[in-house]
């Protein structure tokens, strides 16, 4: 499942926030390699730097020191607007909330990201329908976010993240606002996509039930990697659904 060249390389990442009077050291020399197809959870107590690390890997924030290489390309020095384009074409995002545009339906939300990439109308709607089917929302194509449950919204967000055919998907606490059944459901879908499509997922969580599902768990404590381990965890046999 792993290729030789890592998909993501974080090299000696430091992050210090200087906004307040006392500088906060959020990440202290973090280095990791993540390979294509990995299903990685970043775990750790609140304030340990999970979000900070994901933001830096995702090109939403700049490291104070260190480098991020994505597919060998150093993104540390890209300008803000180059980073926006880079994110659009290479990274899928699932946030804890505010993932969707409230005035657009599920299918429109997914098409929108492809529109930004310049995909043709016919391809957009075809792929959007396939993706919504894949996340089990084939009957909610034209529902607006406020007509969907929290779990359904997060599934649309996963479909949206996949729509742009990104190199990997970052999900910062994707289940934090979900009840445990919806959380499990979302994880099932993410896992299926990972196994069927080799989609690389990196997600953060402090929910033990969720972290158990990961293939690799990176423990952060006070901005340091305390433990980085592969498990053969309780990976469920996926109920097969065909994906685009």
């Amino acid at each position, binding site marked *: 499942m792993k290729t030789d060249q890592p998909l993501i390389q974080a090299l000696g990442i430091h992050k210090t926030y200087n906004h307040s009077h006392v500088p906060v050291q959020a990440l202290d020399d973090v280095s990791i390699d993540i390979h294509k197809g990995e299903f990685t959870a970043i775990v750790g107590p609140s304030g340990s730097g999970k979000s900070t690390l994901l933001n830096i890997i995702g090109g*939403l924030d700049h490291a104070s020191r260190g480098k991020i290489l994505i597919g060998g390309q150093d993104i540390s020095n890209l300008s803000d607007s180059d980073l926006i384009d880079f*994110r659009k074409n290479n990274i899928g995002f699932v*946030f804890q*909330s*505010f993932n969707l545009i409230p005035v*657009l339906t599920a299918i429109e939300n997914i098409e929108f*990201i492809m*529109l930004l990439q310049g995909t043709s109308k016919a391809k957009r709607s075809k792929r959007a329908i396939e993706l919504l089917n894949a996340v089990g929302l084939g009957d909610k194509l034209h529902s607006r976010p406020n007509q969907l449950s929290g779990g359904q919204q997060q599934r649309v967000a996963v479909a949206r993240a996949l729509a*742009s055919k990104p190199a990997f998907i970052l999900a910062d606490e994707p289940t934090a606002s979900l009840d445990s059944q919806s959380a499990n459901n979302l994880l099932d879908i993410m896992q299926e996509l990972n196994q069927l499509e080799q989609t690389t997922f990196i997600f953060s969580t402090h929910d033990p039930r969720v972290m158990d599902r990961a293939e690799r768990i990176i423990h952060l404590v006070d901005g340091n990697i305390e433990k980085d381990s592969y498990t053969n965890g309780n990976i469920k046999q996926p109920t097969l659904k065909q994906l685009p």
Partner: protein
Amino acid sequence: MLIKIAWRNIWRNPLRSLVLIAAIVIGVWALIFINGLSSGMVDGYISNAISNRTAHIQVHSLQFERDNEISHCYNGIPVEDFLNQSNKVQSYSPRIIVNSMMLASQSTLGATIIGIDSIAEDSVNPYKSKITEGKSFDSSIKYPILISEYLADKMKVKLHSKLIGNFQNKDGDIVAAKFRVIGLLNVAKGDGQEMNILTPIDGLRSLTGFEDTEVNEMAILMKDVEFISEFQQQLSERFTSLSIKNYKEIAPDINLMGIQIYLGLTVMLVIFMMALIFGIINTMLMAVLERYNELGMLMAVGMNKTKLFLMIVLETIFISIVGLPIGILMGSTTIYIYQQKGLQLDRWAKGLEEFGMTSVLYPQLSLTIYGIIAVSVFITALVAALYPARKVININPIDAINKL
């Protein structure tokens, strides 16, 4: 899709949007109606002035232009020939103009006697329709005159009264003639025409020693105001020794009135636009700050700043111009209604008549002004969009996503 998003966003908070839209509808409606009123007022004034005083073009000798001396006349025949050849001329009236001292049994007053051809004059200045007492000229009386009610009142004369006129003839000698009032005219006061006395041109020619062909003034009405400047040019080239003036040059007050509409419009537009700018910015800022997270998310997932900026600008323009057609429709309907039945201004009739205006107003508005109003609203929206849109592109996506 940007358009779709922008449009739907307007209706996310319908009440707030409707308040702004209603404000724009009312503003546009009021602008159109007020401008229609002043435009109608000015137009009434101008067409009054053209038919009563100036016609479209007047031809004088150069010296007469300077000193109004009766002796400065010219041969009217070549000019009439030229006018007869043009198909753009509606009508014309040759005139002799004499400044006279008028004596009645109880009063003396300076006035202007204008010698006219009764038919030609009526086609330029419809004086016959203004006769309130008496009748128009016929051949039964020697030296008949029509005077304004105002003049009759001032001189304490009535229909059929006799008036003695003292004036210079062409050679500079003083002559006296006995005129008889055969009719009274109801003319607007305040612009000088109430001091005019009309009499047949033949009688006045014989009194002043004018040749049959000689005139002081030729008043010309064109078929359309469009033709005026070009025809004025042609006349000037053909008759270099004569002074050819259009109505704006003859009566600068007309031009001033025209300028005044645009000035009034400009002032009102500027005030309206200023109020509108603040209204739009306020509404849009609220709308945008409310969506801080969502907009930050869009930037996070790869919507670039240009597109975000465009989306907010589009939204601002939409919210600003939905009200525009409604306002225009309401405004033009109001104008149309009053155009049909006229707006009665009885309460101010006296004051308006003093200024040579009629007391029934027919509002109207040119398409240009509708256009100016529409474009102004559009530009205002564009300008007002810049500030909220700039705010949006400066959002930091991480803050926006983390803020719960």
